[in-house]
């Protein structure tokens, strides 16, 4: 107990940990609140938007249905919806053509459709009401009550459905999984027979238990906890002392693990508890005693629980999933000594798990990695809301049972690995055979020689001393792999193929010959159409006519559709010529998409570049603090400003290297696949980039390259600054990862934040503003780190 107390005390006394913990918690709450409140300003209508912008009408609309049966409520909601729809139609008609006979005839037709509704609508039409909103609201309420109606059928028909399914031969296989699963499903749903869902406002629970960014923040806290618990003694050289004491092995390891679990629980309560409270404040707390099936997402849930019980279970399952992950981190921290290895294994495991969770479909025959997955466990809402049985030797096992078993098993395994690794594994680095061999060779052949360039020494530290060359080698492999990869241009339909065949023929600048070709083709299709109509008009067509008709029909549905797309593109290009004065060029947008508009590719490159630079540059300043070198370096002539500049120069150089290994291979890949680039063609020839005006493809590629280079450099500078600000490699890795991950989530969730989208849309001001804001942030970080580095007040 005493050891646990001291471990907790150490954490609480760690100001940096507390500071980061508070920052992450604040970040989580702010982002949650911001996301929820942003619904109010979103486009279109949603339940959230109506609630946040007009709470009174939302509540009064819901209250109108109190005490009504589901059937009556559905009827009433439909009636209301129709009424407001009518109002909307009348207003629309009046606003389009407010004079003349057309309006009157339209109104007459509305009256003929439904006189009663029309009269009612006319009586309220002058009220100052947003009829579209009302329409959406009553439609939504109708859906809620319709769900209640169907739920009853869904449950009561379960048995019959099962019987019907078992009649099919594919399910009727004695003791096979499908048969057992169908029978088990019926049994499991027996529990909740008679459950009557209630209509109401459940936005609190729906949103409060479904926010992924909080998971990211809590995962960061867990990693931070492991850094503080397992690395502090190692970094300060205290581990040998701790391990030489009587309780310094298993007991200390156990105390650390228990502290980790305690703080995981505290984090769950603080992060998710606060999230629920904020959600309650924003959306209001509903009646928590109603069955959880009242929320339509829980239609498949086979648990007989109320919303309140669901909230408790949700928190407990979050805790269980996070305990598994925390103990996994603890095991990794125990097993590896190298900071980079710990980071790579921890992040690598999470990325692998996430990839399995995302890419393996839930309904595939090999779906186990999707369900027995840390991210599925972490998605507690889905875990509790969905009903899933997994196939274990033909026996259907419920996912909740599997989750419980996994929790117990994995927690035990990871705890044992962590404790044994902590107590048994030597913490003293051993010398590898390779390094001994290299040393021998150096002694034999190398003379005393070297360089007096600070920059080159710093580069050596990054690439050789801290093994950054491994990361660069990995990037080089990636670069080669990208360069030699074939680009598959995929066509979705016959029309698509036809369109691109035309485009291949027409690609490049529009010449007289090409123009003639277009006209000839147009003539050809006109004739074909005429022929088609003539053949169709024949009263007794011959067999030959029928065949010809079918052939023409095929051509018109396939090739002609493609040609029509070419014609519309031609029209678009002519418009561009008039608008920008650019020449007409036909450009195959599918071919150029990898080079110019590849959203997924650019996001992937951002992630790879970020990860590489975090690993290479992350230790650039922190190494001096870890090795206690700062005073010695600062006492030398070039140890202050010049060394600081050399370190940032090194970071920039690493940024350039990463850029060269990430971006140009895409260009090489394109050239290897398609041999030429239409460098002089205006980039606006691609409709997606219409706002780029007269800019050529070459200029656009160069600009994109420049932006990628600047992005790499900014990441490098950012990580470099973080290294000085945190003065700790682990914290740099963690904070940089979290911050870049948040940026990545923002980018991947919002395509408008991409450079070419902004440029393509002509939002230069937005682009420049964004660039200025980022540059200012980085500049401030650099200035603060310079002040910190060259500051004369050193810590005692």
């Amino acid at each position, binding site marked *: 107990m005493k050891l646990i107390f001291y471990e907790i005390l150490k954490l609480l006394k760690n100001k940096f940990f507390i500071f980061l913990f508070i920052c992450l918690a604040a970040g989580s709450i702010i982002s949650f609140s911001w996301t929820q409140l942003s619904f109010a300003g979103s486009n279109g209508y949603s339940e959230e938007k109506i609630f946040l912008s007009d709470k009174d009408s939302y509540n009064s609309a819901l209250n109108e249905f109190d005490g009504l049966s589901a059937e009556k409520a559905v009827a009433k909601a439909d009636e209301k919806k129709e009424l407001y729809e009518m109002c909307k139609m009348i207003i629309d008609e009046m606003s389009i053509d407010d004079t003349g006979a057309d309006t009157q005839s339209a109104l007459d037709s509305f009256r003929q459709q439904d006189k009663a509704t029309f009269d009612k609508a006319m009586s309220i039409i002058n009220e100052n009401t947003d009829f579209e909103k009302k329409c959406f609201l009553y439609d939504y309420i109708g859906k809620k009550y319709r769900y209640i109606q169907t739920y009853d059928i869904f449950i009561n028909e379960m048995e019959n459905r099962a019987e019907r399914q078992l009649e099919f031969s594919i399910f009727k296989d004695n003791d096979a999984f499908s048969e057992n699963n169908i029978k088990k499903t019926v049994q499991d749903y027996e529990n909740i027979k008679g459950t009557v869902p209630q209509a109401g406002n459940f936005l609190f629970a729906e949103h409060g238990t479904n926010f992924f960014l909080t998971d990211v923040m809590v995962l960061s806290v867990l990693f931070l906890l492991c850094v503080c618990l397992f690395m502090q003694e190692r970094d300060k050289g205290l581990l040998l002392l701790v391990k030489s004491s009587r309780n310094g092995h298993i007991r200390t390891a156990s105390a650390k693990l228990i502290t980790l679990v305690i703080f995981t629980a505290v984090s769950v309560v603080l992060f998710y508890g606060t999230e629920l409270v904020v959600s309650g404040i924003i959306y209001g707390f509903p009646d928590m005693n109603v069955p959880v099936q009242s929320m339509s997402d829980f239609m498949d849930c086979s648990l007989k629980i109320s919303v309140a019980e669901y909230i408790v279970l949700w928190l407990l399952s979050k805790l269980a999933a996070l305990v598994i992950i925390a103990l996994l981190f603890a095991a990794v921290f125990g097993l590896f000594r190298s900071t980079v290895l710990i980071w790579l294994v921890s992040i690598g495991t999470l990325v692998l798990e996430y990839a399995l969770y995302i890419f393996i479909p839930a309904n595939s025959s090999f779906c186990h990695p999707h369900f027995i997955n840390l991210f599925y466990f972490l998605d507690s809402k889905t875990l509790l809301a969905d009903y899933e049985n997994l196939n274990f030797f033909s026996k259907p096992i419920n996912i909740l049972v599997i989750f419980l078993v996994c929790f117990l098993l994995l927690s035990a395994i990871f705890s044992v690995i962590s404790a044994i690794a902590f107590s048994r594994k030597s913490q003293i*680095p051993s*010398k590898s055979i390779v*390094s001994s061999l290299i*040393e021998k060779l*150096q*002694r034999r052949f*190398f003379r*005393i*020689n*070297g*360089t*007096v*360039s*600070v920059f*080159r*020494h710093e580069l*050596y*530290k990054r690439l*050789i*001393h*801290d093994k950054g060359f491994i990361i660069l080698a990995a990037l080089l492999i990636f670069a080669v792999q990208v360069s030699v990869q074939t680009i598959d241009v995929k066509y979705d339909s016959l029309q698509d193929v036809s369109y691109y065949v035309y485009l291949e023929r027409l690609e490049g600048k529009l010449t007289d010959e090409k123009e003639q070709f277009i006209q000839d083709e147009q003539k050809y299709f006109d004739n074909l159409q005429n022929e088609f109509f003539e053949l169709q008009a024949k009263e007794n067509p011959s067999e030959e006519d029928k065949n010809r008709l079918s052939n023409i029909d095929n051509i018109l549905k396939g090739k002609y559709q493609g040609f029509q797309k070419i014609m519309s593109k031609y029209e678009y290009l002519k418009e561009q010529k008039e608008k920008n004065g650019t020449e007409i060029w036909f450009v195959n947008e599918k071919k150029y998409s990898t080079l110019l508009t590849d959203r997924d590719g650019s996001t992937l490159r951002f992630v790879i570049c970020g990860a590489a630079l975090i690993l290479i540059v992350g230790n650039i300043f922190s*190494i001096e603090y*870890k*090795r*206690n*070198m700062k*005073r*010695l*370096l*600062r*006492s*030398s*002539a*070039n*140890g*202050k400003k010049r*060394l600081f500049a050399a370190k940032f120069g090194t970071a920039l150089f690493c940024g350039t290297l990463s850029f060269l290994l990430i971006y140009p291979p895409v260009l090489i890949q394109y050239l290897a696949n398609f041999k030429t680039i239409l460098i002089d063609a205006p980039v606006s020839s691609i409709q997606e980039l219409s706002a780029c005006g007269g800019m050529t493809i070459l200029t656009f590629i160069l600009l994109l390259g420049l932006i990628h280079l600047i992005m790499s450099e900014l990441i490098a500078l950012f990580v470099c600054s973080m290294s000085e600000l945190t003065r700790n490699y682990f914290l740099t890795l963690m904070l940089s990862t979290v911050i870049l991950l948040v940026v990545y989530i923002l980018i991947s969730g919002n395509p408008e934040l991409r450079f070419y989208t902004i440029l393509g849309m002509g939002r230069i001001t937005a682009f420049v503003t964004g660039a200025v804001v980022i540059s200012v942030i980085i500049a401030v970080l650099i200035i603060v780190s310079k002040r910190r580095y060259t500051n*004369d*007040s*050193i810590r*005692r």
Partner: protein
Amino acid sequence: MELQIKNVSKTYGKTKKALDDFSLTLTPGVYGLLGANGAGKSTLMNILTDNLAADSGEILWNGENIRRLGKKYRSDIGYMPQQQGLYDNFTANRFLWYMSALKGLQKKDAKKQIPELLEIVNLENEAHKKLGDYSGGMKQRILIAQAMLGNPRILILDEPTAGLDPRERIRIRSFISEIAADRIVILVTHVVSDIECIADRVILMKDGRLIKDGTSVELISSVSDKVFEYKCSKNELESLQKKYICGNILQRKDGMVFRVVSNKCPERFHKCESDLSLEEVYLYYFEYSED
């Protein structure tokens, strides 16, 4: 060549005075800085190495303020810190080249000096060995070597002989004595025998102030009438230690000698005539004077 410390004060927080109006003038020679823990030695060294700014007062190097000289001043100093971590994957050779770069040495100078220094610190055969594989003593020696790079005119050595075996200690001490002729060497150590052997002047610091300075002989003679000894048996030791706070126990052929430092001769004790060392000076100024 003159390093002048003029009325330098430094306070940490609101009350903790690390240096209190400290003044001293240093000319070429070896200076031994002695003081108890918390006396202000580290603060003084940090100020001298341009790692820390003083709250008041100034340090003049050949008449110019070191804050104004900045880089120029730092290229004149060689600093060997205490308990220094090193880059484990650097070889000694690379580390010295790195320090040459930081010290702004020309390549030809570095090429000449590095082998010489490696030989002086007896590491010429270990030049391509990684520092992570060095023993504690070897690390001390490579740190001395880096401090000597660029022939600094001011050499600040913090516990230079800690962790060295007697042979290396003697070797390094002789080396320091040899190079001290045309430079200022400030030696901070708790190994008083080192100071006694090589320091031309000993500076005693207490509570951030200079309390005494002089040659070893002057300082020892200043306490010659303050040291008293008593021949005793092992059984008597416990009671003597309880009675007298400041004791130094020596083992002699004919039994134990219990020494005390005091202004008055205690009963049964007699004045110590020989074998006085800086240890007694240290005890007198840092332990006894508190009573």
